[in-house]
């Protein structure tokens, strides 16, 4: 067991290092911080709202921001290994495919966490200007982190499917967009009015949306169902990644 842990740690270490030896990490962090700032202060109207809260001006953008930025981190995870041929090295090492899959995922998730932590100036700003409920902000951060993990895990699947990073990026954006779409009012209205289906179907579809589950976190609610929702997307996606990688090798 300790062996499994140290193998995962070795892979996490390598992956994280490789983020920072290439420009990807820096470009990503800068763009992420720039966009969050822009969305919060310009489009989100942080000052105009006059509220000591980050829910609307800051966190409500996250599902949309992640839509494009998270697949950009995830797209290279496996497609790069396949393109370089290092997959063959990795899978002939004395480690299980699981350790490699989990290691690579955790590394990219940690990188996302780091980026999220670097948005701290906004927390300082809102605390300086007023008296926000910092508990709510913390749960919203946790929710955002879990949601990012779910997006990342989906990107893992698409990057395992192809050796072309662009294809991987586009497919994962589409997949993640569907997770957002399911929770939009327009979709539930469509189900209720046009399809004439019962409210149960609208609820069911809505429950598959990251928006539905993220909104609880934004309001400061740590709902175990939402946590399970995000974690199950992650576990399911990593499992699927494993199946896809195995089927490639089985030919």
């Amino acid at each position, binding site marked *: 067991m300790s*062996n499994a842990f140290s*193998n995962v740690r*070795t*892979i996490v270490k*390598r992956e994280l*290092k*490789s983020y920072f*030896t*290439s420009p990807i990490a820096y470009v990503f962090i800068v763009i992420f911080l720039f966009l969050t700032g822009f969305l919060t202060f310009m489009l989100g109207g942080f000052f105009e709202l006059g509220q000591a809260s980050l829910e609307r001006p800051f966190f409500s953008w996250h599902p949309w921001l992640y839509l494009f930025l998270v697949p950009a981190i995830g797209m290279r995870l496996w497609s790069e290994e396949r393109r*370089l*041929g*290092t997959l*063959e*090295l990795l*899978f*002939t*090492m*004395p*480690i*299980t495919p699981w350790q490699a899959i989990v290691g690579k995922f955790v590394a990219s998730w940690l990188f996302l966490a780091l980026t999220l932590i670097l948005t701290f100036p906004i927390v300082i700003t809102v605390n300086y200007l007023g008296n926000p409920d910092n508990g709510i902000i913390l749960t919203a951060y946790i929710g955002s982190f879990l949601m990012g993990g779910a997006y990342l895990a989906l990107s893992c699947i698409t990057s395992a499917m192809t050796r072309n990073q662009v294809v991987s990026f586009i497919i994962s954006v589409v997949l993640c967009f569907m997770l957002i779409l399911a929770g939009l009012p327009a979709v539930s209205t469509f189900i209720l009015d046009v399809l004439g289906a019962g409210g149960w179907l609208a609820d069911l579809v809505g429950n598959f949306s990251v928006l539905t589950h993220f909104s609880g976190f934004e309001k400061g609610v740590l709902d175990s169902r939402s946590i399970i929702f995000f974690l199950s997307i992650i576990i399911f996606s990593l499992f699927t990644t494993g199946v896809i990688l195995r089927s490639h*090798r*089985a*030919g």
Partner: protein
Amino acid sequence: MIKVENLKKTFGPKVAVNGISFTVERGEVLGFLGPNGAGKSTSMRMITGFIPPTAGKVTVGGFDIAENPIAAKRLVGYLPENAPAYTDMTVYGFLDFVAELRGMRGDQRKKAIHRVVEMCFLESVLYQSVDTLSKGYRHRTCFAQSIIHDPDVLILDEPTDGLDPNQKHEVRTLIRRMGEKKAIIFSTHILEEVEAVCSRAMIIDRGQVVANGTPAELKQKSDIAGAVTLTVGGVTSAELSQKLAQISVAKRTAILKEGSSRVLARVFPRPDTVSGELARQVAEVAQREKWRLEELHTEEGRLDEVFRSITLPETVKEERK
């Protein structure tokens, strides 16, 4: 050390490897020969556990690669085709990563890296990023990776591909030296390499083993093996053919080249002729006829000819005739 039983692999309708069986013991260097697409790389990928076989069984050091992959993979060092490596890492970082995955810690890891860096002449590029390396250095970096844990079993897919003649020589020497203590399988297109390095060679064609033996044994299968080639002066080709045809163990004589003053000819023996007998008799005739004999030697046979005659498709062979 390596035991392969009836290994099969199909990709959809295509049969890549069709029932290969062999064993390699410690102290043996087995050369895999075969045309492109013969199934060499696929076989190696199955032996190293990268792809699962459709049927058959591979055991390495007593561990079944399908049932006990971790234990088996620990014993194996593998250099895949085209020598892949993480391009965003330095040579040192890459070797360090592999050594760590191989379970080496602290001082032991540093020593192991130092040892392979010296063996593969990587000192000058140690802190250079892999994507800035020339092909030869990159190849050696990946080769270093495969021997970093001093494995009992080495699987090398075209280890000398893309190296210059000096580097090729170094790598061959290295393989031969390591082959004294390890079980090694390596594939190559270069036939001299097999003679220089292998204790045994296997020719694979269309997924099957078509020849298996020591390089000398394989050469025996060549058409010209045992034939006597001679250069003589002071005789016409017609007279030469006529006299040589009288030798009891000679089957036929071919005139290879006819100059103004000398003739180059080759005499083929009848089957089951004792080796050396034909050469002795040809020399006797030359002495008796007072020919000016400039050169005379018995052909050992050539691997490339054996290779061609075995692996050329039947249709092509007929066209050549």
